[in-house]
Structure formats: structure tokens, C-alpha cells
């Protein structure tokens, strides 16, 4: 593909995120590297606890106080990982914005929607409060919030979960960011609203060349809007590929398991869903070998000894598996 010739807007290399806990260090993200290009939708999938959110918390500089990130994250060529706050604040919320997983608690309960949205524009774009409020109103209309004008004066507790998530989305789009990180943005929404939101994001990508990172459990969402997909397992990226390859030609046994455990439209109803046996690995104890070893049907002696690196697969993607 021609991607190799373009320069990525965000390039992450060997990102490592460790949390210090009472039971010792927990490595939530391990040597994660990826690039994202303009007008692209990159999906991050993987089961709960895989480290998807922490990758982007690290980049945004919002890890919990016991977390440390190392490695590199170049945004338009500039290192932003562990940047001093003053410089980082010029980028995050402005060129790089994030929608959080939990809409119920991610808005400030003590401030009106208007205030929480407008402040972004006041701070990053130097708008007056009244102009900022006008722009916020337009954005609320964009995400199809009914009676947007009234909603501006509301407090978060007066809105439903779906409504709050839409406010979060509108808020993250105010500055027309270069990259929008959407951490499970549609889980709280019903299917029709979900489709609207996804359409909205695609429009945004078309209009502003925004790159979108879509973190999700929902392979349906991935199929609808992603161009490329990265699969995470136990803090690592175990497979990278174009969306079609991931769906039709998954290489890593974990990706295969993930697909088999998801209902599909083209699947015979008689075929039953298969859950992946076992539990996600605990991140505290670093074991030797492949992190998927004890849940893998194809586990070989080598898998117990040596950790596989990402290697090119027959379909042109990358997978971390000794079967290659």
C-alpha cells in the first residue's frame, strides 16, 4: 500500500506503560508501536484489560498517578510522550482529542454543558465565551442532540447516558482535531444512534481529514468504519492488518478466537459461537514465551520459551505468532 510513502501524523514506538501497585509493577502496555495517517480510521480491538485504553491515556498524559510511560510518541514529528504540561496542553484537547469510555462520569457534574464545551474553544482558539457558546450550540446540533439550546444550560445529571456521550463527542470535535481518539464511544448508545454517531465521525474524517482511532469491543463497529485494525492481547499488539484481512484472513489464533466468538450476519445460525477458553493473562507476573500460550489451541514447545515478534503474514499484515 501507499501508506509507507506518506508520513504518519502520529507515530508510536515501543510504548511501555507500567503501574506501580502494592503487588509490584503491572505492565499494562508492552512495546506497542503503530502509525496513524491522516483521514484514516484505525481500530483497536481486544478483550477487557488488554491495555487498549492505557495506550492512549499514556499518549494523552492522563495516566493514573501510579502509572509511568516510556518509549516515544511523535505527533507530526514532535515528541509528545511525557512532554512538560505547558507544551502538552497546547496539543491535547486541541489537535489531539479523546472521547472517554465512561460517559456517566466523564463530564463534570458541577458545571453546565455550555461551560464545559465553551472552555475548550476559549482556551485553545481564544474565542470569547459568547462566541464559544454559539459554536458549541452548532456542534450539539451536529451530533443531533434535540433541543440543543436548552441542553447547553443543563447539567450532566439531567442528561441520559447516550446524551452525555454525544456531548462528549461534540466537545471533542470542537477544535476540529487532527486525531480523534474514541474509546468505546458507542457502547452506551442504542443501535440507531450508534449508526448516526459513526456516520458523523466518517463525515468528520472526510471534511477535516481527521484521523480516528476507534477503540472497541464491537467488531460490527470495526467492520463499519475502520480501515485498519490492531488487535491487542495482554498489553501487546498481536496482529495488525487491513480490516478485510482481519475479518477474512485472520492469522493470530487470538484474532481467530475473537472472530469466532462474535455473531456474524453471513454466518449460519446453526453454527454456534465459540468463546475463547481461559482468562486474559495477569499482567503482573511476566511469564516467558507467548502471552497467549495457555489459551492457544496451537501451542508449541517454542511458544513456552520464546516471545514471538510481529512478522509479516501471507496476507501482508503482521502477526506475533510462531506459526509464521
Amino acid at each position, binding site marked *: 500500500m501507499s501508506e509507507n510513502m506518506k508520513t504518519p501524523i502520529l507515530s508510536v514506538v515501543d510504548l511501555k506503560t507500567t503501574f506501580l501497585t502494592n503487588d509490584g509493577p503491572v505492565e499494562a502496555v508492552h512495546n506497542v508501536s503503530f502509525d496513524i495517517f491522516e483521514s484514516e480510521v484505525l481500530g483497536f480491538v481486544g478483550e477487557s484489560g488488554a491495555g487498549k485504553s492505557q495506550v492512549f491515556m499514556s499518549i494523552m498524559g492522563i495516566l493514573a498517578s501510579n502509572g509511568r510511560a516510556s518509549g516515544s510518541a511523535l505527533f507530526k514529528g514532535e515528541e509528545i510522550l511525557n512532554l512538560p504540561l505547558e507544551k502538552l496542553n497546547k496539543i491535547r484537547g*486541541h489537535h489531539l482529542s479523546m472521547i*472517554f469510555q465512561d460517559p456517566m462520569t466523564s463530564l463534570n*457534574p458541577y458545571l453546565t454543558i455550555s461551560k464545559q464545551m465553551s472552555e475548550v474553544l476559549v*482556551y*485553545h482558539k481564544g474565542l470569547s465565551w459568547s462566541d464559544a457558546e454559539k459554536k458549541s450550540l452548532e456542534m450539539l446540533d451536529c451530533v443531533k442532540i434535540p433541543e440543543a439550546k436548552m441542553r447547553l444550560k443543563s447539567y450532566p445529571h439531567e442528561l441520559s447516558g447516550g446524551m452525555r456521550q454525544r456531548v462528549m463527542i461534540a466537545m471533542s470535535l470542537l477544535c476540529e482535531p487532527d486525531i480523534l481518539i474514541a474509546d468505546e464511544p458507542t457502547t452506551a448508545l442504542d443501535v440507531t444512534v450508534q449508526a448516526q454517531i459513526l456516520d458523523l465521525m466518517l463525515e468528520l474524517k472526510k471534511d477535516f481529514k481527521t484521523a480516528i482511532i476507534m477503540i472497541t469491543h464491537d467488531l460490527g463497529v470495526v467492520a463499519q468504519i475502520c480501515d485498519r485494525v490492531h488487535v491487542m492481547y495482554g498489553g501487546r499488539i498481536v496482529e495488525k492488518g487491513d480490516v478485510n484481512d482481519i475479518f477474512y484472513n485472520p492469522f493470530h489464533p487470538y484474532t481467530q478466537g475473537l472472530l469466532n466468538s462474535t455473531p456474524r450476519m453471513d454466518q449460519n445460525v446453526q453454527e454456534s459461537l465459540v468463546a475463547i477458553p481461559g482468562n486474559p493473562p495477569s499482567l503482573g507476573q511476566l511469564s516467558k514465551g507467548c502471552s497467549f500460550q495457555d489459551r492457544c489451541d496451537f501451542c508449541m514447545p517454542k511458544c513456552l520459551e520464546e516471545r514471538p515478534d510481529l512478522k509479516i503474514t501471507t496476507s501482508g499484515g503482521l502477526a506475533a505468532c510462531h506459526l509464521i
Partner: protein
Amino acid sequence: MLRLILNRILGAIPTLFVIIGISFFMIRMAPGGPFDQERQLPEEIIANLNKVYHLDEPLYQQFGRYLWGILQGDFGPSFQYKDHTVSELIFQGFPVSLKIGGIAIVLAAIIGIFLGTIAALRQNTRVDYLIMGFSMTGITIPSFVMAPLLSLVIGVYLRLLPVGGWGDLKHMVLPIIALTLPQIAYIARLTRGSMIEVLRSNYIRTAKAKGLPERVILARHALRGALLPVVSYLGPATAGIITGSVVIEKIFGIPGIGRFFVLGALNRDYTLVMGVVVFYGIIIILFNLIVDILYGILDPKVRYE
């Protein structure tokens, strides 16, 4: 808002009635009476006194008479300070207690919130340990130890300030310090705890992700939620402190209202004790109301109820 205030005032009536009832009968259950003295007074005189003050009537009648008096704003005459009514005594002592108590609690709130916030922002650093160390000390040292220590060191050894008395500004300094220190300590701890919790919350994470400067995050996003527990503490604390600390007023010889409570109880000055108790009750109810109003202003979720 007006509705809330009216509701509260109506709701306060039964509370006050219970307070009055319980204290009325309790003080009378205590052994001895208002006219017991070292030298026993002649029977006839006591009988006469009892008659004058209606103490010879059956209790329920006395209680009714007392309630009727209160309704008219009359707390009756003091049994001990014979030429004063209880109301006069209260309004003579209260301004003094209000003055030092009010200054103390305002100082304590400002300093305590400031220190608590610093400690929270510098959690687990030396600054934090220092503030929390001071705070633990302040909380654990009781005022009957702190006050004499202060007057001993600053008043007696260093001779910087008078050890007691009332009248000048310089008389107010030591009692205010003695009242303020434990309050600062408590408020700092409270603020630190709630601030740490708020700073960990998802909405502060959102504010950071929005790229807002730290001072905006602190002032606009964090402070309000962190201060709610402090506000609910400050209500009753203020009520308590402006109605006079018995210990502090005794040690520094301040003519406040706290003194009357002790003297009244010791002398079985029924009306004086009752008057002070009812007055405390009213002040506490008042400050709880103020807390509720402040809560409504600070927390939008409360506004509708």
C-alpha cells in the same frame, strides 16, 4: 429557596420542642436546687423564693409556663444573677464569643482549605507529610492542653501577650489561636482527602485531556466538588465555635457565653442553662440551614429537591 427556608423553620419547631423538653426535665433531675448554699437558708425563705420563681408548682405547670414565656421571647429571670434576665446575660456574652469564634472559624477555613489543597496536590511528598503531621498533632492535642501551653509559652515565658482578660485586640490573639489550630488541622485533613478523591475522578481526567491549564482545572473543575464535605463540616463547626468554648473561655478569662453554661449548670440556675441550651439549638439549626442553602448553590443535583 424561600420554600426551603420556610420548610426548615417549620421543621425546626418540633426539634426545638424536644430539646427544650429533654433539657427542662434533665436539669431538674440533677440533685440540689438553685437556692442551695453553703449556709443553709431558713425554710421560710426558700419557700418564699420557690414561690416567687414558681418552683412550688407541679412540673408540668412550670413547663407550660416556661414554653409560654419562650413563645413571647422571654427566657425568664436568672436565679443566680438576680437583677438580670437570661436574655440579657445571653446577649451580653454572645457578642464576645461570636467575635473570637467567628474570626477563628474564618481563619481556620481559609488556612485549612489552602493547606489541604497543597497537601493533596503534593500527595506523598515532604510537603504533604509536613502538613499532615501538623494536622494529626493539631487534632490529637485537646484544647485544655493547647490553651494553657500557649498562655504559658507566649504569655508567661516570652511575655508577648497577656495570658488572659478581655478588652483589647491583644487579648483576643491567644484564644483565637487556641480555637483555630485544631480547626485548621481538621479542615486541612478533610480538604486533602476529598481533593485527592476529586483529582482522581474521571471528570478531572477529561479536563486534563482537554488541555486546560492546571490552575483552571483546580479552580473551575476540582475545588467545588472537593469543598462539599468541608462545607457540611463547617456548618455545625461554626455553630459550635461561635457559641463559645467553655474551656477556652475559662482558661483565658473571656466573658463569653460558654461561661454561663458552666456556671448555670453548677449553680442549678435552671433558667440560665435552659436559655443557653435553647439558644445553642437555634444557632445549630440556623447553621444547618445555611449549609443546605450553600449546598444548593454548589451542587446542581441538590437544586431540584
